[in-house]
């Protein structure tokens, strides 16, 4: 890290954004560095494969750079980036690869399963069920899908989701309620 980067590191979000707008070297790099992991994970949740998630992450940051002047600091930079990310992902998923059609196999539950006590057949069954759930989520209406992904996989509060989606907490909870209901119905149809 250079001396310039080190001095940027002490800036809060708003000051960092202002440094970007002032054309200060390394300022936007630092924003990317701080937020690239959650942005990538969000994109991955929507598309289900590394290549697309990587492209979408790049797109999210590029759009953020273009729209930096519109960032007012009313929400956190993370929330603002999530908002851009959700829009980019929903547009991309709708236009191109549905979540459930992801070509890459996702070993979703690897981090949560103790392989010593789970049999191979149990792992297969669990992977199949996870795949069915992903496909069902991909068939949800856009706002319901976004709400479900942010709530269940990113563990965001209803308030945070409301800020990302630009709606009220009540609307987010209603979306979540209907998303779960539709998910149950879709999973039931698939069986």
């Amino acid at each position, binding site marked *: 890290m250079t001396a310039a980067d080190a001095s940027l590191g002490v800036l809060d979000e708003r000051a960092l954004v202002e440094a970007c707008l002032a054309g200060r070297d390394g300022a936007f790099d630092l924003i990317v560095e701080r937020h690239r992991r959650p942005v990538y*994970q969000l994109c*991955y*949740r929507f598309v289900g494969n590394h290549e697309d998630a990587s492209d979408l992450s*790049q797109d999210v940051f590029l759009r953020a750079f273009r729209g930096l002047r519109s960032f007012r600091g009313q929400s956190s930079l993370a929330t603002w980036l999530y908002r851009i990310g959700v829009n980019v992902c929903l547009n991309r998923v709708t236009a191109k690869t549905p979540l459930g059609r992801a070509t890459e196999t996702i*070993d979703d539950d690897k*981090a949560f399963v103790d392989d010593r006590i789970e049999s191979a057949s149990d792992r297969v069954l669990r992977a199949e069920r996870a795949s069915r759930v992903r496909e069902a989520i991909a068939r949800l209406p856009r706002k319901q899908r976004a709400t479900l992904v942010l709530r269940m996989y990113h563990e965001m509060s209803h308030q945070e989701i409301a800020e990302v989606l630009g709606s009220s907490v009540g609307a987010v909870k209603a979306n979540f309620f209907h998303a*779960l*209901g539709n998910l149950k119905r879709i999973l039931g149809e698939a069986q």
Partner: protein
Amino acid sequence: MHLRPDELVDLAEGARAESSAPHLAVCEVCRGTLADLRATMGDIAPSDVPDPSPLFWNELSARVRESVAVEAIPRPFWRDLFAWPRVLVPMSALAAAAVVIVAMSVGSRTTRPALPIAATEHLLDAQQIAEDPSLGLVADLTAEMDWDTAREAGLAPRGSAEHAVTHLSAGELRELGRILHEELANSGG
């Protein structure tokens, strides 16, 4: 009255105790809905996104840096103008309309026979000449011109008698002379 969706979500997530919703104890429908919500939430197993290669993060930063650098290079304004769909689409429509108008205009000129001088004189009135600077200039230059001068200048319009006579071949002129002589003889002149 049944519990609202947001109330059921709060109950399903444990944000609110069931004891705070006495309606549940007496409503089988709401109990069933709540059980379904919890079961579906259980189906969505918590999971991690597979971590990409450690090298990926720097690669992503580099890609973003490159795309941002390209974005920051000033481009000629017309590139943005023509790359802008909201401008391009109406401009394409206007261009298409212009092509149609020109085609119709050319088509009408080629299919409509040229009018004799007497007729064309009525097509250009004073107001049209006043509105069109180029017509006004022509009108000023030709205001004092007599027919002989106009004929010498080759200004006889296509389709007029002057134009027809001055553009006849030698054989056609001989034939015209013969016809005129016959007509004069017949008329006794």
